[in-house]
């Protein structure tokens, strides 16, 4: 029998077989995906949006007592009024300046001390224990003492923020440093790397993820601390604005402060996440 095009013996099985072969090629090794599916780039906004929706709905339907929590649009209208009266932006700038100065000193000290404590035995003995001890003290309890030591002016405010911002950076950097895989260190030794090259090629990439994580915590902490320090002798700043609103029982202004804090916190966190993405582009992790 001459094979005619399209009609070969067993041809009815061919497609079936080839399908099976395709399946076999892909499925038989049975490689199950353990990492997460590719994420949406702004997927994290879903949670906050859902919360906002519930809040709006609750306020619109009168389920939420406005004396306890004003409606979300109150934050917008009051915020617009405050901005128009020139009360909002100057206060934000003052607080941002305090946060910025505090962060600068806190991060600088955190990195330097973490490196000293992580890279030298002496530093470890001297620094780490003190830091761990001091970590147990609430910042609120420190303020009366900082008032005694630094007074009630800007110096005290910046010092408190700096101390609060110091810990996360120190802890995460130090932790990352001490967690660098010994194999890399041995590799550096075998390659006869100079200490400078060791710092540059092993230590720097090793601590960077930890440092950046610490930075994210530090920035948030700095914003949280500014409201506390602005309770003491402040005449400007978001914390002052909120405290003033508290003393006049202006719930709407208090809410503006709260929303503002959330916004500033998230915005500065986003900036650091961008930084993270840029600096750690070599990382391939579960989240990427």
């Amino acid at each position, binding site marked *: 029998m001459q094979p005619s095009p399209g009609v070969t013996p067993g041809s009815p099985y061919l497609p079936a077989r080839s399908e099976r072969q395709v399946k076999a090629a892909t499925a038989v090794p049975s490689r199950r995906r353990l990492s997460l599916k590719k994420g949406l780039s702004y997927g994290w906004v879903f949670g906050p949006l859902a919360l906002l929706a519930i809040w709006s709905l609750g306020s619109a339907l009168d389920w939420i007592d406005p*004396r306890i929590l004003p409606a979300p649009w109150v934050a917008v209208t009051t915020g617009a009024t*405050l901005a128009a*009266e020139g*009360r909002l932006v100057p206060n934000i700038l003052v607080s941002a300046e305090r946060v910025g100065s505090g962060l600068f000193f806190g991060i600088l000290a955190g990195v330097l001390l973490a490196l000293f404590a992580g890279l030298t035995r002496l530093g470890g003995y001297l620094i780490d224990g003190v830091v761990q001890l001091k970590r147990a003290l609430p910042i609120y309890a420190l303020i*009366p003492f900082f*008032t*005694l*030591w*630094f*007074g*009630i*002016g800007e*110096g005290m405010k910046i*010092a408190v923020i700096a101390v609060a911002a110091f810990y996360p950076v120190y802890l995460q950097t130090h932790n990352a440093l001490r967690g660098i895989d010994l194999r890399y260190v041995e590799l550096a030794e075998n390659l006869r790397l100079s200490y400078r090259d060791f710092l540059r090629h092993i230590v720097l990439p090793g601590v960077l993820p930890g440092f950046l994580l610490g930075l994210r915590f530090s920035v948030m902490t700095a914003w949280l601390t500014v409201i506390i320090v602005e309770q*003491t*002798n*402040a*005449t400007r700043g978001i914390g*002052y604005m909120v*405290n*003033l609103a*508290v*003393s*006049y*029982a*202006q719930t709407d*202004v208090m809410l503006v402060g709260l929303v503002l804090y959330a916004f500033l916190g998230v915005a500065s966190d986003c900036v650091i996440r961008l930084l993270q993405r840029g600096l750690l582009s070599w990382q391939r992790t579960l989240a990427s």
Partner: protein
Amino acid sequence: MMKGALIAALFGMVTVSAQAAETLPLDAPIPDTVPPGTVLRIGGLHDLELKLSGEADKLPFKLEFVNISAGPPTINAFHAKALDVGFSNDVPAIQAMWLGLDVRIIAVRLRKDPETPAFQFGIAPKAHIASLADLRGKKIAFSPGQAQGSVVLRTLKQYGIRRDEVELVELPSNGNSYLNALAANLVDAAPLTLIPIKRYAENYAKDGGKVLPPFGIKDNPLILWVRAETLTDPAKAAAIKLYLRAWARSTAWIAAHLDQWIDVWYVKDQGVPAEDGRFIETQLGHPDIPQDWTNVIRDEQETIDFMAQETGRKPFDAAKLFDRRFETVSGAAFSAVPH
């Protein structure tokens, strides 16, 4: 001094103010000349009232205003030597003496109409209290170191209620903490002052919350007070004398220009409606700065004895708390300005 030096050495950031060359005894006359370079740090934001009344430019020394006026922060700032003149009611000064801080009252502000005191009792929605006589057996917010505490104790005494017949819930009064405690039924009654009175009545009347009418207890006086040590510096003492006059005159000026004051301070600076500003000024009452402290000291002795007995402290002579070298300074300046 040892401790200060040690801390300064440790932190290298503390500026230790230069010691005055001479010290002024606490019974010597107050000098009249203020040496150049003198700085006075004042608690409370009185810069605007001094500016508005035109007093600020007349002072031949530098004033720094510090936004601290409640009792506990004032005591902290005194400890830190970050403040020269505090502004509060009289209870924190008594408390400071008990805490070992040697302080002096240098000016007193009373009110012309003592029948409308700054404090009124707020009643929680679920408390079932119709009048103050019903306080027996109830939970009452109590802050021992603040005027609120003395108001509670004096009220109980006036109505013949013993301390063990009520439950005193220790709660510092800051911002609107008493308003919130009432709204949440955490306490049955709490002394409210200024804006929380208005806000509580507005917001919680529909739930059954109410504010009882004034109850015939005299307000605590507002005072200007200093550390005794500050008065041993002749430069500061001389500056304080001049400041007291400026303060008294600007207080009189404000009483005479209340509408302008409400607009500039409450509306423009503090961002509250004019009616809130007017409410606060009404609660504070028309000022009276006395030239004779005899009655003030007698009342203060009563407050000290009473607080001592109720809080287990040792009573002391009220005269110790007043520096009578300043007795006529503010009063005379006040009465010289129409108000």
